């Protein structure tokens, strides 16, 4: 349980950092995502016993930060998506093991779940497939 909670906290920090980088710098989506994943992959395994898992969570969150501004419009959106990412990676550790793209798939599921929840709670915010509010 401690691992999960710590994973969620790290995911939230990573998500906020990614959103800030997207908003405040001219880095491309690939650069932002790769930068976050690189820092997480180099630092977290050296800091924590479960650092490998935390690096996977951060990497997944970094992929979620590649969303268009219409899908994830503000920090709260990003934080909720990061939380979902952390939960999916933590509880899905034994699924598709060793399959490249697994983390990206987790990120996409998180984003789609978030969009679904957002639309359920606020039907007026329905988004089209192009990521544009209609």
């Amino acid at each position, binding site marked *: 349980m401690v691992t999960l909670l710590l994973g969620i906290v790290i995911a939230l920090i990573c998500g906020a950092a990614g959103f800030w980088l997207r908003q405040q710098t001219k880095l491309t989506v690939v650069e932002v995502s790769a930068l976050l994943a690189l820092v997480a992959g180099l630092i977290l395994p050296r800091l924590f016993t479960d650092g490998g898992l935390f690096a996977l969570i951060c990497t997944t969150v970094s992929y979620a930060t590649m969303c268009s501004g219409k899908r994830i419009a503000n920090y709260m959106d990003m934080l909720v998506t990061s939380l979902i990412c952390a939960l999916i990676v933590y509880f899905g550790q034994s699924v*598709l093991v060793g399959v490249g*793209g*697994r983390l*990206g*798939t987790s*990120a996409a599921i998180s*984003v789609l779940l978030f969009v679904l929840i957002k639309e359920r709670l606020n039907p007026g915010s329905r988004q089209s497939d192009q990521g544009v509010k209609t």
Partner: protein
Amino acid sequence: MLHYVVIFIPLLGAALDILDVLFTPVGRLVVLGAAVVGLIAVFRRPGFSLGPQLAKSALISLVGAALTFVLSTQLNLGAVVASALVGLVGAQVLKGRDQLVLYLGAFVGMSSVLRFPTLVPLIVAGLLGGFLFELVDDCWIGVGGRLGTIAATAVVVVLAITGGGL
């Protein structure tokens, strides 16, 4: 809309994996059946054409996959660091869509050496990833993780053909 099946293959694979049948004959048949249905739908889309961009994306994706796999498994950098390095360096060299395709290839290359004991299936998955990027260009636009999902589609389909490894 039927071509969306292609991008849902990793989710189908995950469901089959939870049921522990993904790389059994039945699971492989289901995955390959979904891939065939999705690809037929892609090819029958109005305006579909096999242009040079398709080959270019396949090659870029292949390079990303091979580089990441070698960095990850031969230099022991680990999948996360290897793919991030390929993505970062690639972003300095390539522009626009090509950056995305290289990063997609890097996701394919994050696969375990236990899944791909030899390079040939990985190369095929890398090429397939680039193809799929072009073929499902209208799916999940603006969704973070889309590239990884396309990469996972390529990997799961190739593993369904080869037997799954491990």
